[in-house]
């Protein structure tokens, strides 16, 4: 186990049942602050279910999901918070959230966990820029005094809106979509929609970004660009939780990998260790064709 001070998210004894089906079975792992933590495993292993529990889309059958903000000393309140009935506790310079007690919108708004989806869920009829403005809704509502000050034309709202547009613009630059700012999001090609979904999640100002198969449907070149984007997000200090089947993404950018099979953890460690783990090879990776590895090496040389 990593030192408690580094831990951002603790998943403990998470179990999720759907009727008689146990999708996630007594799963425990930790994600460190500033790390890219990958969750991999065969199809149907329960990866997306774990995401849905962390982000409040599902209420877990059992288990504790604790997230820290700010100072690591906040972990000291964990047992007290668990014993009490509250969702969160705040201390000097830090806070602790029990995600399993929170509905999805509060996980996003208060615990500041943002996510993307396996099947892209943008607002397809809104423009690219509008999608990025909606992401900043909570901040803008606050600035507009829940509409009132905005309607009355207070200058604070105008300033907040300009700042929101500025933030959206800088993200458009970063994901290379400035030229498409006014096009409906649904008209963008698949790869661009994926990047826009990441930018939209980032504009909710998260402390943890959960990405469900962000490289699906991308070609090797686009996957490499995604790697750059995710590494730059990590360099900004953000922590990422990643579900992905593209090993050229997972193995190159992850700090830590957790492997699930049939809802149970079968491996947990650094990429090099996971890649050579026999259970992971048997259940998930399979044996790599020699010539594929050779061509990939050739192409990267």
């Amino acid at each position: 186990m990593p030192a408690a001070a580094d831990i951002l998210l603790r998943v403990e004894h998470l179990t999720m049942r759907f009727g008689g089906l146990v999708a996630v079975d007594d799963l425990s792992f930790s994600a460190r602050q500033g790390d890219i933590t990958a969750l991999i495993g065969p199809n149907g292993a329960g990866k997306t279910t774990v995401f849905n529990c962390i982000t409040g889309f599902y209420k877990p059958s059992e288990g504790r999901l604790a997230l820290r903000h700010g100072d690591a000393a906040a972990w000291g309140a964990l047992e007290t918070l668990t014993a009490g009935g509250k969702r969160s506790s705040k201390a000097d310079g830090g806070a602790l959230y029990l995600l399993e007690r929170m509905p999805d919108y509060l996980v996003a708004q208060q615990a500041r966990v943002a996510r993307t989806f396996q099947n892209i869920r943008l607002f397809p009829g809104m423009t690219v820029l509008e999608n990025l403005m909606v992401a900043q809704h909570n901040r803008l509502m606050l600035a507009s005094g829940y509409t009132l000050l905005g309607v009355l034309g207070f200058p604070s709202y105008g300033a907040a809106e300009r700042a929101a547009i500025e933030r959206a613009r800088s993200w458009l630059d970063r994901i290379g979509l400035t030229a498409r700012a006014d096009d409906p999001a649904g008209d963008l090609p698949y790869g661009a929609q994926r990047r826009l979904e990441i930018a939209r999640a980032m504009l909710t100002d998260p402390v943890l970004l959960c990405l469900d198969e962000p490289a699906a449907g991308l070609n090797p070149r686009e996957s490499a660009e995604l790697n750059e984007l995710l590494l730059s997000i990590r360099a900004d200090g953000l922590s990422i939780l990643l579900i992905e089947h593209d090993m050229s993404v997972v193995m190159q950018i992850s700090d830590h990998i957790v492997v699930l099979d049939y809802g149970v953890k079968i491996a947990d460690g650094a990429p090099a260790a996971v890649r050579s783990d026999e259970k992971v090879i048997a259940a998930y990776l399979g044996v790599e064709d020699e010539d594929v590895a050779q061509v990939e090496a050739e192409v990267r040389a």
Partner: protein
Amino acid sequence: MTAPLLSVRGVKTFYGRVMALKGVDMDVNAGEIVTLIGANGAGKSTLMMTICGNPRAREGAIVFDGRDITQMPTHEIARLKLAQSPEGRRIFSRMTVLENLQMGATVADSADFDADLERVLGLFPRLKQRIGQRGGTLSGGEQQMLAIARALMARPRLLLLDEPSLGLAPIIVRQIFDAIRTLNAETGLTVFLVEQNAYHALKLAHRGYVMVNGLITLAGSGRELLERPEIRQAYLEGGAH
């Protein structure tokens, strides 16, 4: 020289006023595996969908097995045993896995059903475990397996696969590509494949086409295309590392 099984000539497809396909020419011969590669947004899926008549080509001709299917309704095209596993899966989410497979088999001879079912469940053992579950409760990758299996249940004369590897574990991707190769070699199944993993696709295919902005810009054998530097650069290379 026999006529190709599928022949696409001068096809133009529009979304509103936007021309997505700008005059596409391509052929698939019986018994071949042909792949189409290209960047996101190039029009690959649009070509797949246009072949199935949704959206319809505004100009040009699509001929399947000697019949002009350009203006034919989609369900009649399906009855000619042209089956597609579409991008985004599009399984029937309220039907069970078995019912989805039965839907795929409606255009096939019912005498073959049991044997075909056994064959696709052998290919995807995961679906066997889920056979009575509703499609919508499957994981994303399992839905992708179901979409491919459903298309195979049609006993297609031409199988259109739009990104079959999407969302699948590496070991399953390998199994699918092996299965396509085996079905092609043993039963002569003709396959038209769109795939982001250009290396795997070109290695599997007899021939390949490259699409850029709604036009075919290159054609050749899988091996020839693999060796072209511009292909390597655009679709294979992992960028700067």
